């Protein structure tokens, strides 16, 4: 029982961070149709820029977060403007590859400036453990859940309710048509990349606080794919459910079965899901009519 509680909370917190990272991916995909393989690197950039502001430049935490947001927005907008805009209308594979190239460049940049040694950061979230139902649970994990839930809630609201949400979805469907109804495609693109980068920043910093600031964050980012595919690529609730599922399943498998197996369990789950539902659990079938 006690193990169960520990694993449950840790799994939920991982899942929540994962969902947040994945939501950035979904945001980009929904609005621009771009499959961003560099989402993991966005987490990395987020974590390192915050680290630089907070630890290296010794800024107060709020200011450091603002610096992080600024960097995230700039990176997001620059990437959109100079790398993805010229790619409009290219095939899936080309877009996937250009973001893979981007991922290489971003991680190479981080590596060039910071090396690969993990860096430690003074704790942001409260440390220590509490006992819940007999399980020892790190307090920062609980905080991670809360933070991610709040940010996820805000983003979801924005996407579903605000008029920018509809604009984003319209742009995703048909950019030319969106222009004819007066939606500035550029602004929508820039906005979705910036939002994705910001959500990655929050996910990255939370993750870095729980672990360390290190290149490994990228590997965590790879898990975004099983999550979004399970969720159906463009469904916000699907992404949240997908994130929590992957977080929990991984944790339970590594706790009760084989920790090594946990590495590939997200992918096994994914394959199972796809066999039953080729468009993910929450995804709608692509419209294909002749």
């Amino acid at each position, binding site marked *: 029982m006690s193990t169960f509680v520990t694993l449950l909370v840790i799994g939920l917190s991982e899942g929540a961070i994962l969902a947040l990272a994945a939501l950035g991916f979904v945001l980009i995909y929904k609005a621009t149709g771009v499959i961003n393989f560099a989402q993991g690197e966005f987490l990395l950039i987020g974590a390192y820029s915050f680290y630089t502001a907070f630890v290296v430049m010794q800024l107060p935490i709020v200011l450091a977060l603002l610096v992080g947001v600024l960097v995230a927005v700039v990176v997001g907008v620059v990437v959109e403007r100079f790398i993805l805009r010229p790619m409009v209308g290219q095939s899936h594979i080309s877009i996937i*590859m250009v973001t893979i190239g981007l991922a290489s460049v971003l991680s190479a940049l981080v590596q*060039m400036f910071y090396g690969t040694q993990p860096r430690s950061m003074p704790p942001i979230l409260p440390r220590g453990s509490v006992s819940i139902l007999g399980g020892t649970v790190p307090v920062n994990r609980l905080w991670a859940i809360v933070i991610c839930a709040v940010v996820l809630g805000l983003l979801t609201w924005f996407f579903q309710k605000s008029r920018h949400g509809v604009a984003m979805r319209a742009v995703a469907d048909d950019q030319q048509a969106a222009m004819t109804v007066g939606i500035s495609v550029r602004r929508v693109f820039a906005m979705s990349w910036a939002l994705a980068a910001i959500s990655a920043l929050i996910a990255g910093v939370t993750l870095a606080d729980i672990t360390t600031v290190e290149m490994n964050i990228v590997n965590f980012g790879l898990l975004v794919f099983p999550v979004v595919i399970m969720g159906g690529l463009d469904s916000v609730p699907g992404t949240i459910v997908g994130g929590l599922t992957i977080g929990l399943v991984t944790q339970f498998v590594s706790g009760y079965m084989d920790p090594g197996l946990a590495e590939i369990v997200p992918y096994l789950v994914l394959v199972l899901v796809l066999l039953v539902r080729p468009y993910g659990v929450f995804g709608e079938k692509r419209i294909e009519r002749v």
Partner: protein
Amino acid sequence: MAAVETGRHHTSYRSELRLWHTRPQIVRMAVLAVIVIILPFILDDYWLALANTALIAAIGAIGLNILVGYTGQISLGQGGFLAVGAFTSAILTDRLGMPAPVSIIGAVMLTAAIGVIVGLPALRLKGLYLAIATLASQMVILFIVRRWEFLTEGQGFLDVARLEVFGFRLDRANFEQQWYMILLVLAILAALTATNLFRTGVGRSFMAVRDQDIAASAMGVNLTRAKLTAFAVSNGYVGLAGALMAHYTEILSWEKFTLDVSILYLAMIIVGGMGSVAGAVYGAVFITLLPVLVREVADVVGGAVPIIRDQLPAVEHGVFGLTIIVFLIFEPRGLNRIWERIKDWFGYWPFRY
């Protein structure tokens, strides 16, 4: 599509269907043949080893291009498939004592079969869904290779005996030269057979699936069969590349078949030109030589900009990414297209159009 050179008329379908028609084409092929044949006598072992690596990569890239470039099925599973080919051939020769050619054929067939198994879900999956499903296959295959102690007898790696073909054992002194010859022949065969495939109905049905699968099925193309065949054929080449890798490098461990390798191969076909056999070859050579080039440049400018030398792997990594981006933005059809342009330019010289 290159502009059709003018003044070329055919009197029979047979002549039109030939691969090389014009004088310049034939001359070009002859020059290329001469260069390729004298290469092993002028390069030292270091460069020959690079050439050999590139030739193996070319075979693998041709295979990947069949699936991705021609059939439109995105695959991130190349690394895993190479591993299947490599370990199969190594185990068949070393443990079952099969002659290398037989075990290589065995590896080709098994990799093709695994391709079909992985291809099965592909029947229902499209685009990114398929890409991620193949990513899953990469992860799972690699996990198996890593954990299945039978493969490496618990050592984590597998030694492969020196290649012996029909009683002829490669010797140490001429190791690279001899391999070069073997690989050259195989790479040419791979390129020719792949080219032929796309001159005929089977290959056309692959391309039809890529361009418009619904119309293809309405034209009588069995989508299931076409996709699975594409997976099998593509993986056949990949299996061959994997097997050759095993015999050439003489040691195998899972670390040679990671996701990075899958990405490397995708980069080859992107840089070379998707949906083009020649492109796959150009891409393989280019991507194999890229890190070497970066290093040479780093040696030269490293004094002035020390970060380039000190952070070489990061720089290599970054340059690799940048190459992909630059190609996709400025010449999405890759080196093959650039080469065609050059040919056209000379073909029409002195006229500009």
